[in-house]
């Protein structure tokens, strides 16, 4: 007995097909014409197929701006998003006039913080401006929100877009206010009516899930708090009590805490470069992987590590080495199986750089970028915000390269005035790459795909893969270039967002004189 599905009433058929995932739906589509047509005609099934083809899941949490849309509208937006990734181009410049008059302090990048495409600016110690940059890719309009905190004098702010969370640290009364990013009201999940009193006059340097990382500027320890319960869950003791450089610590999304965890700051003055420190098994020594200098690498973690916290529950500590010649910036996003390393040198004296990677962490190098110009001035790591970067114009009119890495794509700026300035985008989103390869097989050569290189020199640390990425070069708009190289009385800061660039012009008082956003 066969099911004879096509003879069923159409809504029963759709009910059955609605239980299948996209792979089965695609098999159904090629089984017969009736099924093909039924699937093609159903907006909901089309949406689920295309969502899966893009490697996405439907948003599980409500839209931060309270927008709700029908499946048809979501499908339309998804197709726009997909097309936007295929042909990247700059959106028209947006003038962000709301920012004018806000402070841009670069002494600590905490005063200018960004999460996803939301930027936070402070003014007068009691007011914050949240600026969401517009984006064609994401289909978001430019929005902004002002949040005021009365009687606050000396403050810092930090946002986590994914959790709709704004943390406002009031140093004068030593507590953190937990607010909702979209409205400025008390966050519904926060402990103690939105006030986390830690009794310390310091700021939050990292948010990850339920956990906050509270840094001690003058102390010797770093504390981890659970912001939903208000409990201090862990304290990390530094080896240098009076360390002047507060380390940038990043919390792993699946950060779990046990008493054996001990963070050790490097004391070896000779060490150069970057290190992943495993929180869990400090006794298992890291394996070294020697790489040539002056290059940037993007790594993709193998899939089997994605949900195995015991394998890769690491914390990342980028630090400036004692060597005056090298500095680096590094961050990780284990949830997306990606981390990137940007390595550079001021003077060509160091021939190689050491990555300390746990022995059984298999990494695939999917892109290695050419060394940038040697006269480039690099910003020390402690002036880099998490995920963001600054570009400083030089009298020589040479611009440094900068890298921003999103969920599954990297935007790398390698502009130089000698040649046509472009932004190179390395898109290593697995599904987009797979479909680009499929299009190429069908004779559609609209994309440049590069085979990922491997770094398996000793054949032990690295798994050789066939990972590839799509390379697109987007010319830098003339106006943007002009701003970046301007040597006017104002200083110009450039910040990279997930899929765009925000340019901020400052006056001598570190106040924003003008701001523009370009998105691709």
């Amino acid at each position, binding site marked *: *007995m*066969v*099911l*004879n*599905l*096509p003879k*069923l*009433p159409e*809504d*029963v058929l759709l*009910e*059955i*097909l*609605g*239980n*299948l*995932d*996209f792979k*089965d739906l*695609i*098999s*159904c*589509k*090629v*089984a*017969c*014409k*009736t*099924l*093909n047509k039924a699937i093609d005609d159903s907006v*909901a099934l*089309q949406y689920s*197929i*295309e969502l899966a*083809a*893009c490697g996405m899941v439907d948003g599980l949490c409500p839209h931060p701006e309270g927008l709700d849309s029908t499946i048809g509208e979501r499908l339309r937006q998804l197709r726009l998003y997909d097309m936007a990734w295929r042909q990247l181009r700059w959106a028209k410049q947006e003038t962000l006039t709301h920012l004018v008059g806000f402070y841009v302090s670069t002494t600590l990048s905490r005063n200018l913080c960004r999460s996803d495409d939301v930027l936070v600016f402070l003014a007068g110690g009691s007011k914050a401006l949240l600026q969401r940059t517009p984006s064609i890719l994401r289909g978001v309009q430019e929005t902004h929100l002002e949040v005021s905190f009365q009687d606050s004098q000396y403050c810092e702010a930090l946002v986590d877009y994914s959790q709709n969370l704004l943390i406002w640290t009031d140093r004068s009364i030593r507590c953190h206010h937990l607010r909702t990013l979209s409205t400025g009201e008390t966050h519904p999940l926060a402990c103690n009516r939105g006030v986390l009193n830690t009794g310390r006059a310091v700021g939050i340097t990292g948010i990850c899930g339920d956990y906050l990382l509270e840094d001690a500027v003058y102390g010797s320890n770093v504390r981890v708090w659970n912001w939903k319960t208000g409990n201090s869950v862990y304290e990390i003791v530094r080896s240098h009590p009076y360390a002047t450089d507060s380390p940038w610590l990043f919390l792993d999304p699946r950060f779990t805490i046990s008493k054996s965890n001990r963070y050790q700051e490097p004391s070896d003055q000779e060490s150069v470069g970057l290190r992943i420190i495993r929180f869990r098994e400090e006794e298992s020594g890291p394996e070294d992987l020697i790489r040539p200098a002056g290059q940037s690498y993007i790594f993709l973690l193998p899939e089997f590590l994605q949900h195995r916290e015991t394998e890769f529950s690491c914390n990342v500590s980028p630090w400036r080495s004692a060597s005056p010649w090298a500095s680096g910036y590094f961050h990780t996003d284990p949830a997306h199986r990606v981390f990137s390393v940007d390595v550079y040198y001021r003077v060509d004296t160091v021939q190689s750089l050491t990555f300390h990677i746990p022995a059984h962490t298999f990494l695939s190098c999917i892109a290695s970028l050419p060394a940038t110009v040697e006269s480039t001035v690099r910003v020390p790591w402690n002036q880099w915000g998490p995920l963001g970067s600054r570009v400083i114009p030089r009298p020589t009119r040479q611009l440094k390269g900068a890298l921003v890495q999103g969920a599954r794509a990297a935007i790398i700026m390698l502009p130089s005035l000698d040649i046509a300035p472009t932004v190179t985008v390395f898109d290593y989103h697995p*599904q987009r790459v797979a*479909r680009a390869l*499929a299009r190429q097989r*069908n004779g559609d050569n609209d994309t440049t795909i590069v085979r990922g290189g491997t770094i398996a020199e000793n054949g032990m640390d690295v798994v050789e893969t066939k990972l590839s990425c799509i390379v697109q070069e987007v010319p830098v708009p003339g106006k943007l270039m002009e701003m970046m190289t301007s040597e006017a009385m104002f200083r110009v800061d450039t910040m990279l967002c997930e899929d765009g660039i925000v340019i901020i012009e400052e006056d001598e008082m570190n106040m924003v004189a003008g701001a523009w956003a370009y998105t691709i």
Partner: protein
Amino acid sequence: MPTIVSVDDSTVPGEGSSRLLLLVSSDNKHIVVEEDIMSRSRFISKQVEGFEATSQRHAILLPFSSFVLNKVIEYCSHYRGYYLLEDDPDAAPPGRSPVREWDQEFLDVDRNMLLRIIKAAHYLEIKSLVGSCARAIADMIRGKTTEEMREILGVENDFTPEEEHSPSSKCTG
């Protein structure tokens, strides 16, 4: 002369507060069932509303066999008095139906029967049962290749070879 089958011997007319319905299956079996058991079915509810409007009660003819009907009544009796979200016309959520263990056991029947039950449930407008059957059928075809799927579903490959290899009949990406 049709046979009258009572689903439950304890329910004799006039005893309970619930009124009785007479359902007639396609094989001409008469089945007496309490009205509130079948209230889960939108089709039956609409019929009953019709009776009340005309104050005439008559047998409801159904286009499927007593074997299938008894199975549907068994389902409805099991969930008698339970509120199932999918059956609420005002609150029915979109998307997949939830997994209910009893349903899985209940629907552990051959394909033929499953197909008849889903058709009956669709006719009687019992959303929760349609959902559970749909899940059970989907489980049968999940993870199968196109060839295996054609066999299970009883469909012919009606694509021409050109169509079969054109990208439009495959994944949209």
